[in-house]
């Protein structure tokens, strides 16, 4: 097992080699490095968002006027409720993922598979919600080149708000949604490897931990996307 391997080489001199740097396995460390680079990518998008938003003319939309319905149920009047449901789904799927990792530490194949399938369902539910929200906004006329929503406050109140809103919304939530989609695909692969008994044979469930890191990162990005698009007014 990787834990034992780590413990054995730890005994050597720090500068004579053969020591595991940062006390983490190669695969996990590389996943962290990938996530760090991915964090840079998302940060560049969010930095762009911040800069374009504070300089936007004639002004920005009010989020509670843009996101105020639940598809199929309520047309309007419930601001931010739908995105609240989406946020809850993503946090819940993060919890099932971490429970799968915990079951993996105990070599509990049945529970790893169970929690992986719950995580996959959570991811698919989130993607469906996002598809519904996009459809709703496009039907209302929000596109990359047109913004039907009005500026709520200030000297330009009542004018159509900056078209940058549509650009940034579709690009950033789209990029995040693509990450969720990739995460679901990777989770499905890991689920099938789990039920095939691959990790049981290997003696550890580190792969589950690695996809877990990726999945939590997707949740983490959503926390920031949620704040900048839906909360800040």
């Amino acid at each position, binding site marked *: 097992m990787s834990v034992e391997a780590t413990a054995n080489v730890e005994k050597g001199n720090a500068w004579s080699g053969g020591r595991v740097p*940062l*006390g*983490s396995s190669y695969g996990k*460390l590389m996943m*962290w490095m990938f*996530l*760090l680079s991915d*964090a*840079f990518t998302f*940060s560049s998008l*969010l*930095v762009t968002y*911040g*800069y*374009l*938003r*504070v*300089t936007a*003319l004639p002004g920005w939309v009010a*989020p*509670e006027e843009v996101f105020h319905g639940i598809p199929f149920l309520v047309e309007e009047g419930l*601001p*931010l409720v739908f995105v*609240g449901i989406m*946020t*809850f789904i993503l*946090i*819940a799927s*993060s*919890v099932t*993922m*971490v*429970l799968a990792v*915990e079951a993996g530490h*105990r070599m509990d194949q049945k529970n790893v598979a169970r929690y992986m399938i719950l995580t996959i369902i959570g991811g698919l539910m989130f993607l469906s919600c996002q598809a519904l929200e996009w459809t709703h906004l496009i039907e209302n006329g929000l596109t990359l080149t047109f913004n039907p929503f009005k500026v709520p406050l200030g000297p330009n109140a009542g004018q159509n708000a900056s078209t940058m809103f549509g650009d940034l919304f579709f690009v950033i939530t789209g990029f995040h949604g693509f990450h969720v989609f990739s995460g679901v695909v990777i989770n499905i692969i890991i689920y099938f490897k789990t039920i095939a008994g691959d990790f049981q044979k290997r003696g550890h469930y580190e792969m589950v931990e690695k996809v*877990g*890191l990726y999945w*939590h*990162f997707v*949740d*983490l990005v959503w*926390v*920031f996307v949620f*704040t900048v698009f*839906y*909360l*800040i*007014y």
Partner: protein
Amino acid sequence: MSENIAHTSEAHDHEEHHFEIIEQGLHEIHSTRKEIWRVFFILLAITVLEFLIALTPAIKDGLGKSKVVGIFFFLTVLKAFYIVGYFMHLKHEKLNMAYTILIPLMFIAYLITLLLFEGSHQIHI
């Protein structure tokens, strides 16, 4: 006879020790799961708090925009801390590992701050 008793008591001790180990293991599993659910409810509570602030005009008008936005950012970073620290397990990794991940991200916070100042300055020209 007495030898036999000693033997059984030894076996009994051994068994008890065995049970202790299993119990300890169960306790560990229990506390890990408890921590997971604790973090889940903290994240949920923070999100609910964010919604309450976002949907209550009285709070928004009372505190003013810059303070409310500051609170939103503080709560967001708090959520990020719980996700990265507990779910991604960074809090229990080596400190050097945590620095490797977190120090580069500090520069992003710096860049965001710079650009927001620059941007809001530009619009007032």
